[in-house]
């Protein structure tokens, strides 16, 4: 039989930050023939869900079942090339190529193991049919386990779970958000500076641009552009504090936060300093749509050197945002509001917007942050400069 040796398909690196991926769905059943370049599997990374293509033609053998999470580089499938022989290769009986079985464990044992970070594969089950039960996990838990007193009085355990609470496991993206945000708060010495920006001219310009650009640039597109221009003149705001040094980036890539179903995604406008406001508007519309539909590709979510977060559309007047490490800063933008302002010594009705910059004090100090934010304000208050 002229069957060549199988080609291993391992968990690919689909985003620069991924360490593992989850098999969402096999697009081809085991035993089917696949062509090189044909999508065979959907993989969820910490950033997005993507299709992955077969690198060679042959018969697909699945190693990692749907729902399993596999570390980068670990095998997820094999492709058995079919030789020139007229006899088709006998399909492997599927059970023999089955992945290592999921440990048999009861729901509460699984929950407690997850809470204590215990790998169920290392636990031996004492329950019926060898199931790992609560007692088996508790025996390995560092300090006992969830209190189940025989008395009806509840023990005051630290996180008092409301009796009607339901637990939802995090998606990969939510896990990533949780760890990045906690990392930021725990490790970044951040501080905030805030300005009130007169948006009268910006609003006027936007109305004029609406007649010339489709889609009409939004206030956020102008903020992105103003930041990008200011970042070129404040390299540390466009840098990263990393391993005891400053990394100052050549590219100015501005991310903007998009609320997607059950996730927060930050699509990136690359080289935003070199794109026109109209280009930024087109690109941000398309990226935001793909993000909300869950179709955005990891490269479109990576490489940001600075982030803008805008909650103005919710009528939020001002807020502070959490820095996305290793970026140096994040700008939190509120709504444009009509309010009384002092203009040439007289009271007038102005349209203003609050902008709050959170900075990593290891790289961007108070005066630097103030100077950068001041330039952003100046550029938005004289917006004609955004067009040239």
């Amino acid at each position, binding site marked *: 039989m002229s069957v060549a040796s199988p080609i291993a398909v391992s968990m690919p690196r689909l985003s620069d930050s991924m360490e593992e991926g989850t098999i969402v769905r096999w697009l081809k059943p085991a035993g089917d023939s696949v062509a090189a370049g044909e999508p065979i599997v959907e993989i969820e990374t910490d950033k997005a869900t993507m299709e992955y293509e077969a690198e060679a033609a042959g018969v697909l053998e699945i190693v990692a079942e749907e729902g399993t999470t596999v570390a980068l580089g670990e095998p997820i499938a094999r492709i058995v090339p079919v030789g020139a022989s007229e006899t088709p290769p006998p399909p492997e009986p599927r059970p023999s190529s089955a992945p290592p079985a999921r440990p048999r464990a009861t729901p509460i044992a699984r*929950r407690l193991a997850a809470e204590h970070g215990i790998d169920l594969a290392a636990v031996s089950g004492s329950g*019926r049919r060898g199931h790992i*039960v609560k007692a088996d996990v508790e025996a390995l838990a560092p300090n006992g386990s969830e209190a189940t007193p025989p008395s*009806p009085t509840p023990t005051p355990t630290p996180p008092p779970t409301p009796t009607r609470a339901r637990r939802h496991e995090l998606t990969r993206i939510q896990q990533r958000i949780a760890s990045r945000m906690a990392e930021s708060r725990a490790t970044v010495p951040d501080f905030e500076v805030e300005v009130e920006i007169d948006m009268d001219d910006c609003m006027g310009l936007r109305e004029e641009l609406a007649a010339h650009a489709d889609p009409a640039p939004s206030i956020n597109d102008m903020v992105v552009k103003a930041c990008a221009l200011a970042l070129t003149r404040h390299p540390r705001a466009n840098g990263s504090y990393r391993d005891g040094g400053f990394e100052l980036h050549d590219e100015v890539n501005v991310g903007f936060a998009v609320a997607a179903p059950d996730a927060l995604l930050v699509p990136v406008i690359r080289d935003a300093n070199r794109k026109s406001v109209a280009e930024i508007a087109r690109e941000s519309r398309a990226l935001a749509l793909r993000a909300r539909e869950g179709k955005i590709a990891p490269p479109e979510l990576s490489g940001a050197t600075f982030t803008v977060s805008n909650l103005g559309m919710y009528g939020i007047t001002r807020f502070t945002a959490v820095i996305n490490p290793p970026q140096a800063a994040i700008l939190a933008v509120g709504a444009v509001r009509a309010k009384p302002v002092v203009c040439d010594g007289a009271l007038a009705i102005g349209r203003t917007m609050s902008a709050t910059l959170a900075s990593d004090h290891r790289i961007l100090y108070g005066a630097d942050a103030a100077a950068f934010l001041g330039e952003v304000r100046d550029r938005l208050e004289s917006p004609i400069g955004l067009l040239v």
Partner: protein
Amino acid sequence: MSVAELEFRDAVRDALDEELARDESVVFFGEDVGKPGGVFAVTGGLQERHGDRRVFDTPISELAIAGAAFGAAITGLRPVIEIMFGDFLFLAMDSLANQAAKYWFISEEQASVPLVVRSAVGAGGRFGAIHSQTPVPWFQGIPGLKIVAPSTPRDAKALLKGAIRDDNPVLFLEHKRLYSVKGEPGSSDEVAPLGRAAIVRPGSDLTLVTAMKGVHDALAAAEELATEGIDVEVIDLRTLRPLDRDTVLESVRRTNRLLVVEEGPRTGGWAGGILADVAEDGLEYLDDVWRLTTADAPIPYSPPLEDAFLPSAERIVTSVRKHLNSTPVNSTA
């Protein structure tokens, strides 16, 4: 010196007697309930005390009994009827399921149906396949109908009073094997609310949920299992519709294991419904859930077969041992 114990059948009779005395609109009728005093000797003396216009015998027609009761209930009386065997409830189905249970709703909650149907259910008495059933699931799926299923004399009396005072139809099930059970009487004016289960034995290793005779089997099994270090919590449901899911769920959150014992066929039974409720709302608390029911077969007539067919304390003990990987403590023998 202990208070005189109360027999289950006397508890039922006392509840009827006291409600007939308390409220003139209460009437009671059925086959052989008046002059003969009932085939299970439950209702003796009631006709003498309350007269044959309020306590009387009927022809052998369950549909006529139930139809008359429905009519009486919507025209001002509070009838209690007896369907001699639960197996014959099927003959009264239209009056109960289509008329009595729906009336409150289709009258836009303007007309209630204060009707109680007493019926003897349960196997173990060598009555055979059509005098031994406990047809709870037939009625449990009928919105508007409550189902009460007591396990002790005290509960039987307090719950029957609660049922008679309820303004809409209640099916009150009396397990034949419990009629001669004696227990503490409780206070004479006790009226129990419907829809509440009771934890009759606290425990930490397993929640055992059941009703009627099953409660006695469960308590006996719990005693036996305690000698092996298995601490069983026993819940007496007391009402099978509405079901007190909260009490069950709260218990399972503590014990992480649930066994439901139902005297009835596995398919379509209420035990399965409770397992489903707990799986839906408490999956993350579960180490094990299972049920002990009868096989999907008619109840055998042969005494040894009938005994083997029914859930019993012994079968509960064996089943719990199997699920908890426990072995019996060796006796000295």
